[in-house]
């Protein structure tokens, strides 16, 4: 179980004033639940995910994973306790091959070619074409992103956090990806937290949390929150509705 209690992340603005990127965020995610975090850009979604992984050190509050207080633990220690985070914009590595990254992620240097290929297939990559390629600038943004997601699948940890996994991915791969999330959830293999704006991913969730201005604006079962979000977005653009009247 993941428990986040009163988490805050304050930074100093240009004029020395406090800026609240996260303000008193509390959240509990039960084992094997599927939570989608959504909300406007700049609302604090990625900061929250990074705080869980340890990439951002919160200025207040605490994070518990399976009863252990991980707030002060290093990234490495959290990773070893079963927390995984798929970067929104994953880095490239000159010289490291897709196979090397998957082997590191799986924790086994003996990862077979076939096992590696299975993870790539799950994210819609034609495995044979990619397994021996370097994760460098010769790969497109969408390809690197899918390899990133494959590394999280290879880790097989109890908590998987994906940060906008759909970004930069084509329609066909996206279909494969949603299928993969659905299967993980159905088999109850991991607790899934996915930051997303995609209806098809939101639709897979058990719960939805909406973050805006660093605060939890809404949090509840999908059936309850999803209609509220849709209602808000469909009437949001006055320009379009005015144009339609003419």
């Amino acid at each position, binding site marked *: 179980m993941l428990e986040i209690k009163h988490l805050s992340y304050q930074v100093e603005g240009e004029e020395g004033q406090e800026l609240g990127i996260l303000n008193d965020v509390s959240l509990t995610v039960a084992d094997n639940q599927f939570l989608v975090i959504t909300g406007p850009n700049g609302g604090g979604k990625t900061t929250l995910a990074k705080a869980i992984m340890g990439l951002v050190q919160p200025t207040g509050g605490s994070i518990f994973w399976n009863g252990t207080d991980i707030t002060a633990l290093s990234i490495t220690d959290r990773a070893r306790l079963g927390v995984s985070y798929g970067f929104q914009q*994953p*880095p490239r590595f000159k010289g490291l091959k897709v196979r090397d990254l998957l082997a590191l992620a799986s924790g086994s240097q003996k990862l077979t070619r076939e096992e590696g290929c299975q993870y790539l297939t799950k994210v819609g990559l034609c495995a044979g074409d990619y397994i021996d390629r370097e994760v460098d600038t010769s790969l497109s943004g969408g390809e690197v992103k899918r390899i990133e997601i494959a590394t999280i699948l290879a880790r097989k940890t109890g908590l998987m956090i994906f940060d906008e996994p759909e970004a930069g991915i084509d329609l066909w791969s996206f279909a494969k990806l949603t299928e993969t999330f659905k299967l993980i959830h159905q088999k109850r293999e991991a607790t899934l937290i996915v930051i997303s704006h995609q209806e098809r991913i939101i639709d897979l969730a058990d719960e939805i949390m909406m973050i805006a201005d660093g605060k939890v604006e809404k949090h509840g079962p999908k059936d309850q929150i999803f209609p509220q979000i849709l209602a808000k977005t469909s009437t949001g653009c006055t320009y379009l509705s005015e144009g339609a009247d003419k």
Partner: protein
Amino acid sequence: MDQAEWKLLKEIADLEKTPQGAYNIRRNGQMDARNNTANIEITTKTEPGKSGIDITVKPGTKHESVHIPVIISQTGLSELVYNDFFIGEDCDVDIVAGCGIHNTGCETSQHDGVHTFHIGKRSKVRYVERHYGEGPGTGKRIMNPQTVVYLDEGASLNMESTQIRGVDSTKRETKIVAGKGAEVVITEKLLTHGQQTAESDMEIILDGEDATGRVISRSVAQDDSQQVFYPKMTGNAKCFGHVQCDSIIMGQARISSIPAIVANHVDAQLIHEAAIGRIAGDQILKLMTLGLTEQEAEEKILDGFLQ
């Protein structure tokens, strides 16, 4: 040979026992072992004052290898060696050279090797050269290799030179002249640390029509070490050349990368790329999220980069 010497052989030539095929092992300035085959003959130079060997590969020799490692375990030994290779036409051979110095004393051990290759028409040569130094002594370990290669029509050279740690000072000179349709690929990998210095001067002359040249240089400079690269590609005919130098800089190290391309023909197509930078922070963070410590992540990134 003792254990330390076998370890050097393993580091520079992957040898755990005497190799297959032709070989010449030079140990502390003397010939230690040699083997010729029906197609490959190694002879000691007879010119006075010139130490070294001639390696002659008969035309049409395929899938054979020559190992010519040099090891120095005697402190204070300094040598200059000339090795000349004469590769006939239509050959396909692997050549493994390299030098390992184990210095336990306080005097400088130095090996300067001059390798000259004459590669016949349509012949393919893979040339692997590794330099390695170790030992608890305060004496310096110095290696200054010089490589000169002449490629005849349609010949190809795939050269891989590696120096990972342990060599205090190196000045490397490489000159390649590629004839009509000849192909040159040079991969250079270097890691310096401590107070080490390394300099690499490289000149590739694409002299014949449709010659191609490619230089891939990857280096890591740690601590207070210094590196200087001067790769130069010259096109004298319709040709294609590409120079790519990538370096990772760490600590207080200094790196100069000064590639040059020179076209003496309107159809010479030459490209150079050079980059120096530190390890990106997000690369380390990403590997830490996979469960590696910061140090393990850094090592993995460097290993991959120099792979």
